[in-house]
């Protein structure tokens, strides 16, 4: 941390650039789709940064991160759908979701963090898949496969005018309508920023140092008197809460919660990809990885569609380039990254090998 090379500075510059772009996103990139992309990036930065604290800093491989994300989201979704679109419903529902995530995380940790890391990965995968099945089976509560649709508090409604101009209509700044959508975006942006800064603070605290020591050499950390299991349980619970809070934000933004947006295995794969692309154990990498992959998700598919159409008539190629097959290409990119750039974008730029 003390001395930064050019790479270190360029990583920070990129992160700063992404931050500024997100801050002014509604003004820089007008249009419904662009703001969807920006909001998704904000939420995924928190989700990925919290996952990085787990996998990159502590060396715990968990597949339950989407489950915690989903608990926060479903807490908000169910509360808002079953009651009115009030702040109290949002807060109570969100709190219930976060609490459920914490309790579940501590339970899983106590049960299986004692055993080998790889065992833990399998256990979390199994638990998360059951959560997914439960979400689609308890349909009178969760809406099953269809999920739940609801309204956010009035402040975030597109019909709400934040400012009025002289004629009493919704004011425009730089050509952008100051409506509830803007309020919702800055709620997401601010919330994500606060959560990200908390995560960043944790990694540079003494706790972060202990976590790294545990990752480097568990036996030695234990011998030095650190209670490894207690630390791991704490981190697992803490990151679960962070993921659930990200879920609260996302559910508030989308005004929809369903298995595909929060719980699915695809989201877990997305998170993994973002962590690896950005760079494990760097925190800055989370920002870069989330931004890069979300953009790719939204815009690469268009590109693939165009390519697939252009190649129509040829054997196999159009199928390979079908936008629905974009996971195939991501999977290949992912494998290549893990081979050749295990440190990810941030780690490679900064020139530091992430040690196992």
């Amino acid at each position, binding site marked *: 941390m003390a001395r930064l090379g050019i790479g270190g500075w360029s990583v920070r510059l990129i992160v700063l650039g992404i931050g500024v772009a997100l801050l002014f996103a509604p003004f820089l990139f007008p249009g419904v789709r662009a703001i969807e992309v920006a909001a998704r990036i904000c939420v995924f930065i928190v989700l990925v940064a919290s996952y990085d604290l787990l*996998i990159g800093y502590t*060396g715990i*491989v968990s597949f339950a991160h989407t489950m915690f994300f989903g608990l926060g989201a479903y807490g908000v979704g169910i509360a808002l759908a079953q009651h009115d679109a009030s702040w109290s419903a949002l807060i109570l529902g969100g709190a219930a979701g976060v609490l459920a995530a914490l309790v579940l995380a501590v339970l899983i940790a106590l*049960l*299986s963090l*004692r*055993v080998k*890391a*790889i*065992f833990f*990965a*399998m*256990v979390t*995968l*199994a*638990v998360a*898949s*059951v959560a997914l*099945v*439960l979400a689609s*089976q308890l349909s009178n509560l969760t809406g099953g496969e269809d999920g739940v649709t609801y309204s956010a508090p009035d402040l975030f409604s597109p019909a709400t005018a934040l400012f009025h101009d002289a004629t009493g209509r919704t004011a425009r700044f730089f050509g952008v309508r100051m409506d509830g959508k803007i309020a919702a975006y800055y709620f997401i942006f601010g919330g994500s920023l606060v959560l990200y800064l908390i995560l960043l603070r944790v990694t540079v605290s003494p706790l972060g140092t202990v976590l790294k020591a545990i990752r480097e050499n568990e036996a030695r950390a234990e011998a030095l008197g650190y209670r490894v299991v207690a630390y791991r349980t704490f981190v697992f619970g803490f990151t679960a809460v962070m993921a659930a809070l990200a879920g609260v934000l996302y559910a508030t933004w989308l005004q929809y919660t369903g298995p595909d947006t929060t719980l699915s*295995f695809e989201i877990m*794969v997305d998170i*993994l990809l973002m962590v*690896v692309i950005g760079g*494990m154990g760097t925190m800055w990498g989370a920002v870069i990885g989330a931004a890069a992959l979300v953009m790719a998700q939204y815009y690469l598919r268009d590109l693939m569609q165009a390519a697939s159409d252009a190649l129509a008539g040829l054997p*196999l190629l159009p*199928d*390979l380039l*079908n936008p*629905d*097959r974009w*996971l*195939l290409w*991501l*999977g*290949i990119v*992912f*494998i290549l990254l*893990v*081979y050749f750039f*295990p440190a990810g974008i941030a780690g490679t730029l900064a020139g530091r090998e992430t040690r*196992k």
Partner: protein
Amino acid sequence: MNQTLNRLGNVNLLPLVLALIAFGLIGSPSVWLTLTIAGLAMGMMLFLMASGLSLVFGLMDVLNFGHSAFASLGAFVAATVLAHMSGWLGSESWVLNLAALMLAIGVAVLFGLIGGFLFERIIIRPVYRDHLRQILITIGALIVIEQLIFVIWGGSPLNVARPRFLQGSFVWGNVSIETYRIFAVVLGVMVYAALYLLLNRTRVGLLVRAGVENREMVEALGFRVGRLFIGVFMLGSALAAMGGAMWAGYQQLISPTLGAQMMIVVFIVVIIGGLGSIEGTLLGALMVGLIDNYVGFLMPKAALASNMVLMMVILMWRPNGLRPAVK
């Protein structure tokens, strides 16, 4: 609980205990028998899919998250072969029926062997001894294989033909048992017996068992465990493909996400059974198969959750599973 069990025999009796409890809960002997056979059949297919995963982990400390992709591959290859053999499948002669089925399974196994070889060389070899990258890269491989299956076979579910002699059921009084399930049990028992003999009666098997326990010492005695490992990896992949082929005939409708779906159950099986031993895997597979069928009858909505509860209980009692290999 430990001592009581040991006095009675050991953890091997657990499936029996489970069956007895279920008998009490279900009440009707004919329903119970049907469910038990169904559970055993499912257990044997799960055993096929899980045994390779367990052995590979035991021998090389490699956990292959892409393992279930081979089950998926096997299912689709077998379905394709069966679709081309409809003449033999529908024939009156059970010999032709069986030949078609064996050919389908054989081709699936062949694909498993070749796929396993390539997978070990390309995917696994560069990331030995690095668990984190292993997990990441094998998940990447699972995605890629699954997507390739999408590309080759399309996204819509595929119908799987069953040979004529395995259609229908045996009926004894008011007990009715699907023939296919009996076939699954018979095949599973045969494969288990063959694996057991291979591991316990041959020099290669001896080497595998020794390698699971202490890889370095096997090398110090003059053997290349790396070469042994690729063999075990290929065998494990082929078994998974065989399990997938059987599963395809059992479900009669398969979709490309089969691998990802089976991964969870396969993991639960090896977690319960303990990693590194085929005895443990068989035990875990039978318990999962039985519980799934019993609970599916008693409380249909709780079937998958029941496997999870079973896994949690077993982990609390034995954190390394019921019968892990000696390490």
